[in-house]
């Protein structure tokens, strides 16, 4: 619904806004365009770098996941088939178990920082991605 006073205000507001637009702004020196350009180039390089290393990061995650799953499987297999009895039956099984435990532990150590949200540092903390 149109406001009754709207038409009366249009000319008045338009004229006043024109006056406001001509008022000098209380500003200091404008941001240096050279500095902005330099920062933008750095950010673009940073974006390109992240894009390039994204597949490597993904590969690392897959590697850790497969390692963890494999060692867990070995451990479960060992436990299912008699545990301590196998250790006494030969040194190779005990070594196998130790290796699987070491693998599992190292996978957890590698995966833990990633899971807790460790992110690469951004060169400019004020810049957020445009979503």
């Amino acid at each position, binding site marked *: 619904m*149109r*406001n009754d*006073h*709207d038409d*009366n*205000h*249009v*000319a*008045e*507001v*338009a*004229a*006043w*806004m*024109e*006056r*406001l*637009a001509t*008022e000098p*702004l*209380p*500003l*200091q020196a*404008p*941001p240096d*365009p050279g500095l*902005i*350009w330099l*920062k*933008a*180039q750095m*950010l*673009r390089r940073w*974006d390109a770098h992240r894009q390039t290393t994204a597949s490597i990061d993904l590969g690392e995650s897959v590697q850790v996941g497969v390692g963890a799953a494999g060692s867990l499987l070995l451990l479960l297999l060992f436990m299912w088939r008699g545990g301590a009895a196998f250790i006494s039956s030969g040194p190779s099984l005990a070594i196998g178990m130790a290796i699987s435990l070491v693998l599992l532990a190292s996978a957890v150590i590698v995966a833990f920082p990633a899971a807790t949200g460790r992110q690469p540092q951004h060169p*400019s903390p*004020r*810049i957020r991605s*445009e979503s």
Partner: protein
Amino acid sequence: MYGQTAGPLRAYVVRTLGGIAHADDIVQETYLRALRRPLETADLREWRAYLFRIAGNLLTDHWRTRGREASVDDAAEPSVRDRDATLRLDLGRIFARLRPRDRQLLWLAYVERANHGEIAAAAGVRVQSVKVLLSRARNRLARLLRDTGQYGVGVR
């Protein structure tokens, strides 16, 4: 491009924020974002609309971060009745008493002379809402101009 857009963009950000605090940061970040994902065109009008849209997003983020639709300058502002004659003539201070969204819409409409589509894109509102929001903003400014003795001064 910077030379032709920086002035209007800074004026828009400063007037919409209602003060200079954070204004240059927002202007700088606007250009950084624009240069990070540049338009493929060299058309100044499209670049200008793009910059104003980014600045609008940043202003909205700024207000959300602040948690309220008011600036620090507004909080420090004296009441209308307390103003002396000098303050009455300070158009920027009068304008800063409006809500940020109203300031944004009025500036885009009357200074940038943006159409409803451009206003909607820059302010992050629906095109259908622009007319109503603009009308309300205009009424609030008219009321404010009356309160400050500015109504009728601008029209010659």
